[in-house]
């Protein structure tokens, strides 16, 4: 009995000791969220993953930034000018932009960050995004000095950028995390451990990272030295949990521990019981089946690819296999949100759609067999990741191609790095792949299958495709560029370069007390910068 009493006492001590935490606190303007993964690091020069690209724009600020409606607005630069010939740009920095230790953000901080990112020994995987700058690519390859890169600090508050070629979207690029400033003295004082921990970072964005318990939690607090702090209402964003498990996240949401969780095919039915408004959002990424175009591969045969094109029903796939709202049937490499000349690109230049037609597919297949001189196709390899979603899609395709075309498909399920290695070495016939935008211009998708692009892992190579990419790269006139991209869109369809599967959409739960959260296709998503907690 004594023990029982003791246990009860212990129990009540445990349960009462915990302060009631709510995910959205109006008094303190604090919200709690869960991350899917821990950011590998928060060094803007090297960040490649989604989580880093979610946190960095909250704690750092580039020359420009995106506003609530996704438009480019002044960031550290209060004004900028692009040369009439599009070959350069000048930025004027605001003098009240400060680092979190009170020192001003100067032109040199940008010059240093960009040069260091491009330095070969930094080995930044995102260095390519700086390549529109003059000599940037050469310097990154070690063929030019870092000081030759076309960026100079005219004075403390003026930056002059020379470009390699006219780049229509250069201003948009400067909102990207790789373009964020880094202060030289601070960077050097931290050495290798820069951005490894909260105290190894210095901030110029709306929030400061005040706590980083590895693989457990991160805490962001309002940055009192931020020049536009009046516009920031939230005092604290508490990334209190890190878990990849969507069910655990849903449970945390139900338990009132986090304000936002993304739902997937497995969890959305359970979420329906929660009586919370479910919202949907398009991530702007496109997912497709990539063919191996290397010579000698069966999938190099156009008629085989056409047969598959006329077999796969994207609509059915989205509705019955993915089976969550928000996803769109894909018809092109270019997602619907991309801007064209005046309206959305896809409205101005509708993509051709291959109808599902079993007889036509059979015809193409017969042609393919004749061309290849074979009676029966050998088993083809479908490379896939080991996530449940990827596995499910691979299984569906395998079943579909077997039942409709009689193609034997072997699924090659690999862990992340092994899949990448096989993709790069070309050890596949098909691979489930996807592409998300880095910046808000059609080019972020357009050059994907250019023969020189290393991410073109199927090694598709077509001089007319390359030429069209060059046209869009070297021109600033929207009409010329979009016309070129429309032709490119046609090549992708006619040549069946890829099999577009779906445009990704997600559904999510957001605590209704949190307002002003921006979902973005490009930039941090979700963006809590301008959000607030209502009563």
């Amino acid at each position, binding site marked *: 009995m004594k023990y029982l009493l003791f246990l009860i006492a212990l129990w009540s001590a445990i349960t009462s000791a915990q302060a009631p935490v709510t995910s959205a606190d109006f008094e303190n303007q604090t919200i709690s969220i869960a991350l899917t993964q821990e950011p590998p690091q928060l060094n803007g020069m090297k960040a490649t993953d989604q989580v880093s690209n979610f946190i960095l724009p909250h704690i750092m600020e580039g020359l420009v930034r995106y506003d609530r409606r996704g438009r480019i607005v002044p960031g550290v630069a209060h004004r900028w000018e692009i040369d009439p010939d599009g070959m350069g740009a000048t930025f004027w920095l605001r003098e009240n932009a400060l680092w979190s230790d009170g020192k001003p953000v100067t032109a040199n901080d940008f010059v240093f960050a960009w040069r260091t990112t491009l330095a070969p020994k930094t080995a930044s995987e995102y260095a390519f995004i700086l390549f529109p700058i003059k000599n940037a690519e050469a310097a990154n390859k070690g063929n030019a000095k870092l000081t030759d890169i076309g960026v100079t600090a005219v004075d403390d508050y003026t930056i002059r950028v020379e470009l390699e070629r006219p780049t229509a979207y250069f201003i948009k690029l400067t909102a990207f995390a790789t373009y964020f400033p880094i202060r030289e003295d601070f960077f050097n004082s931290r050495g290798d451990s820069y951005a490894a921990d909260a105290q190894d970072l210095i901030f110029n964005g709306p929030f400061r990272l005040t706590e980083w318990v590895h693989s457990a939690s991160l805490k962001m607090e309002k940055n009192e030295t931020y020049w536009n702090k009046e516009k920031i209402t939230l005092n604290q964003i508490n990334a209190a949990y890190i878990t990849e498990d969507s069910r655990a996240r849903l449970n945390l949401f139900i338990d009132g521990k986090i304000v936002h969780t993304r739902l997937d095919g497995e969890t959305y039915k359970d979420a329906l019981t929660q009586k919370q408004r479910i919202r949907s959002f398009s991530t702007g990424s496109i997912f497709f089946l990539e063919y191996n175009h290397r010579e000698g591969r069966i999938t190099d045969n156009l008629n085989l690819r056409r047969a598959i094109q006329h077999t796969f029903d994207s609509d059915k796939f989205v509705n019955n296999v993915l089976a969550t709202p928000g996803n769109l049937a894909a018809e092109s490499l270019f997602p619907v949100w991309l801007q064209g000349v005046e309206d959305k690109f896809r409205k101005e230049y509708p993509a051709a759609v291959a109808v599902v037609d079993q007889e036509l597919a059979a015809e193409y297949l017969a042609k393919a067999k004749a061309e290849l001189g074979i009676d029966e196709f050998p088993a083809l390899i479908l490379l896939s990741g080991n996530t449940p979603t990827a596995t499910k899609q691979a299984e569906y395709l395998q079943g579909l191609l077997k039942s409709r075309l009689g193609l034997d498909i072997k699924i*090659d399920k690999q862990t992340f790095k092994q899949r990448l290695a096989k993709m790069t070495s070309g050890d596949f016939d098909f691979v489930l792949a996807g592409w998300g935008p880095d910046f808000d211009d059609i080019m972020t998708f357009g050059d994907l299958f250019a023969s020189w692009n290393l991410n073109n892992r199927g090694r598709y190579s077509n001089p007319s495709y390359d030429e069209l990419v060059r046209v869009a790269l070297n021109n600033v006139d929207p009409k010329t560029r979009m016309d070129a991209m429309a032709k490119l869109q046609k090549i992708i369809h006619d040549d069946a370069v890829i099999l577009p599967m779906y445009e990704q959409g997600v559904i999510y739960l957001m605590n209704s007390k949190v307002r002003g959260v921006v979902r973005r296709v490009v930039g941090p998503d979700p963006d809590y910068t301008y959000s607030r907690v209502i009563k």
Partner: protein
Amino acid sequence: MNQSYKPTKEDFQPAANSVHAEQLSRPSLSFWQDAWRRLKKNTRALISLYIIIGLALFTLAGPFLWNVDPALQDLNQISQAPSWPKQAILVDPYERWGGIVLEDFPAEPDEYLDNIPAPTNLRVVDVATTKRVRITWDPVVGAGGYSVYRNQRAPETINDLGLPLGITDGGNEVSFEDRLNLEQREYFYSIVPTDGFDESDTYITLVVYPDLAITMSEARERNLLAPDTKLGDSIAIEFHPFGTDYLGRDMLARLMEGAQVSLFIGIFAPFLFVLFGIIYGGFAGYFGGQFDSVLMRFADFVVALPFLLFMILFKIAFGIGPGESGVMPMLLALVLLGWPSTARLVRGQVLQIRENAFIEAARLLGAKDRYLIIRHIIPNTMGVILVTLTFAVPSAIFTEAFLSFIGMGVAPPTPSWGSMCNEGVKTMLSHPHELFFPALFISITVLAFNLLGDGLTEALDSRMRSKE
């Protein structure tokens, strides 16, 4: 002693040859007969044995009795719970629907109202089937578009409308077509007007109960058509007694195929490593000395490897080629890590047995090493080995399940109970049958082998015999 006794001649007669001198009071039983006799008395162990035999039948004979392709997908019946055979209506193939756009109604509102009233007259167009549900409603003034939601029960508040299916882009676009994974059940469609940007606080709800439908071509593909069936007829569709999974595949057929993987790994891997352990441990124990200590030191090393970590490491190191199920690498990893414990056990047993008098006697009679090992030593360690084997089965099955959980199990489309369980856990609330059946099979198997192991331990324990 009586000194006065004088032995007589009769005292030196041979004793009468008694026939009954060596009468056996109990039936003569070999060790195994005795063990079997005692095992039969143990009801739990016996039931377990029958269950295991049943499982073997399920795995081997099942696919012949339930002749359904476990890989056959049916997008008409995704994640169906176990049920009686169902009927579906034959319908036309799906055709795109242009929807309803009113000519005489503005797409963009003339003025922005603070609160737009809810649309009225929400109704179904055509017949609602699981192929598509088409709904339309009357436009409302001030609307610049409409959001369409779907729930599985009647919404209680505006926040309870359910899944956001989509939006229409103009106040005059007053229809919506839903094809999202429709099942034969009640759905509650709600329409919320928007001014083109923000949603209003009003909505209207409609209950729809779509009919289960199948198209002609689908029915033909699946051989469901009788010669005289025509559009609009009801036909029986495939029967799934255990329901279907996330791609509409038959659960029962998949459980049978999964059993082949799970039981193969579960039984064959322990069998292999026990076999290896016997050879290894037998040699070490029998020959002893330096040889023994070298062999055993190596076994100690392997025992020290953190099991799960190395399991994962080996699993990825051996890799899976395209189209391979990955059963072999898993088997190999299990054997590589599993043998030392058996080897140690066998060695200990052999060391004990080697010292027994009957071995010495056999040796004196000229028995060779080989004969001794095969005829005397191994049979005497068999009991312990059998017990180890039965207990190793559950742990191998669990290891397979664990690897599936972290995404390193067998490759699709090969199912295993572990991977099915892992799939099922994710939807355990909405489709409990996808978790329940594989988990049940794992439990039964593990349980049966554990109880059998317990029974065998008791049956083979010769000390127990004396207590009877």
